């Protein structure tokens, strides 16, 4: 495995793995809140909504500058969240249905706009398509900087406002009784998930974004039973999945990084679901069998003594 270790002296590999590791931390921590608020798919809703934003930004400005396109993505994500909130508030439609509706309609709109954009003579595709599947290998220092700033802002905010974030996620009614403005916390968390999704599009793409949020958090929940430890472990899993995914995809020729990262995160989640103590599937089977054995021994003892 000489190849594997020589990776760390490779500049592109270092940039990409640093960027995806930071993204892993960001999504790992936010994913805990998203999963516990039963909004694991919110990231998908936002990222799918980002596609028409990106295309529209390009169509309106004819500018290939990434910052312009990312602003478009952010706007698209915010519009999606707004639509979901509007639908759930004004009608009795549940969150999951509203999400499914907004997600697919926005993505459909994005694909239509993408066709228009690609017909423009000067587009030469403008790399718009890379947003759908992500293109981690094209990550630059500038991208790292954006991920770094977003991660720092989110982590500091979450650490400072830990108590209200935890309380609102656990018990909204109690939070309101003790004077916390629940809608502010809701808004901030949703906005952070939007930022994370937009930042993550470049790495894993629109379609796979939810895995970045859901997988590390769901895996971490299997091992620990406190939100504090869950957030730390989830961030660790995020880094582990991102770096190993980057390493694996760099070891083979033309294997896309984003999907491999998602596969690694998925593997961590599956291992956790199967083998974690107490909550794991295997542990439950062993426990059940040993209980059954004890019970049948006791029953046969009773029989023989009777």
């Amino acid at each position, binding site marked *: 495995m000489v190849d594997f270790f020589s990776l760390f002296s490779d500049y592109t590999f270092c940039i990409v793995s640093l960027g995806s590791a930071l993204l892993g931390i960001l999504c790992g921590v936010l994913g805990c809140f998203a999963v*516990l608020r039963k909004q694991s798919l919110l990231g998908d809703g936002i990222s799918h909504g980002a596609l028409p934003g990106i295309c529209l930004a390009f169509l309106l400005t004819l500018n290939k500058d990434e910052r312009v396109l990312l602003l478009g993505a952010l706007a698209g994500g915010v519009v999606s969240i707004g639509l979901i909130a509007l639908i759930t508030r004004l009608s009795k439609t549940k969150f999951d249905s509203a999400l499914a509706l907004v997600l697919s309609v926005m993505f459909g709109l994005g694909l239509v706009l993408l066709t228009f954009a690609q017909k423009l003579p000067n587009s030469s595709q403008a790399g718009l398509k890379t947003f759908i599947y992500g293109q981690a290998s094209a990550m630059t220092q500038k991208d790292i900087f954006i991920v770094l700033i977003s991660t720092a802002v989110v982590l500091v905010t979450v650490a*400072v*406002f830990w*108590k*209200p974030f*935890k*309380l609102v*996620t*656990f*018990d909204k*009614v*109690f939070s*309101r*009784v*003790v*004077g916390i403005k629940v809608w502010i916390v809701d808004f901030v968390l949703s906005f952070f998930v939007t930022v994370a999704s937009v930042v993550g599009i470049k790495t894993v793409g629109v379609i796979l974004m939810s895995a970045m949020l859901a997988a590390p958090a769901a895996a971490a*929940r299997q091992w*620990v*039973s*406190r*939100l504090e*430890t*869950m957030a730390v472990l989830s961030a660790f899993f995020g880094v582990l999945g991102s770096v190993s995914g980057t390493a694996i995809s760099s070891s083979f020729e033309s294997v896309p990084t984003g999907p491999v990262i998602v596969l690694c995160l998925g593997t961590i989640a599956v291992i956790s679901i199967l083998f974690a103590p107490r909550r794991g599937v295997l542990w439950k089977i062993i426990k059940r069998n040993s209980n059954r054995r004890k019970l049948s021994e006791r029953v046969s003892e009773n029989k023989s003594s009777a």
Partner: protein
Amino acid sequence: MMDSVLTVKNLTVAYDGSPVLDNISGKIQKGSLTAVIGPNGAGKTTFLKTIMGLLKPLFGEVTFGFENKEKKTKIAYVPQTGSTDRDFPVTVFDVVLMGRYPHLGWFRRPQKRDKEIALNMLKKVGMDKFKNRQIGTLSGGQEQRVFLARALAQQATLYFLDEPFKGVDAATEKIIVDMLREIKNQGGTVVVVHHDLNTVKKYFDSVIMINKSLVCWGDTESCFNEKNVAKTFNTDIFPERENIYG
């Protein structure tokens, strides 16, 4: 005349234009134990939520025996069991410590004293042995006791409980009643949404009987009688309940 800790004036609450609570007025005395009684859908939980400021009344006002800005520390609330996610990654002790949050504000971390108070309240409800357990591993009655301990840790003056006796066993019921009496003895005030008509006389000194509009608000002695119960529940057949008015 004792001080009133809560005054409700002409309170009217409506969802989509049709009234759920119609013109309710009354006072709750400091140091009283009050039961809110009424049939399903009578607006009992709405009544509690409006008083706590979670719902906006269409008309009328609610005033407290303390400043409005003190509300977050002086009002404690025990929700119905099952209103939170049982699988949430939080320990019993963490939940009780949340009762200290309103005293700490947005940023301050719980101090040694807050932790002592939380542990003390857990002892009072007989749940200190479970302090490191994840809440999902508790039974319904144990969960109710933990949420009561959270309210106690808040050291409030006015406690609202939404059906605390629902689905709990006799031992838990006794612990809850003992705690409510202790709150009262220390000068606190308790308002409970209550369903068991058999224990109204035994547990509570005041009642609020509602069925969208107010039937009677006053001390149990004068309010809780056959006539008012029949009016509240829209039926006069309570054959097995002859001796509950005592």
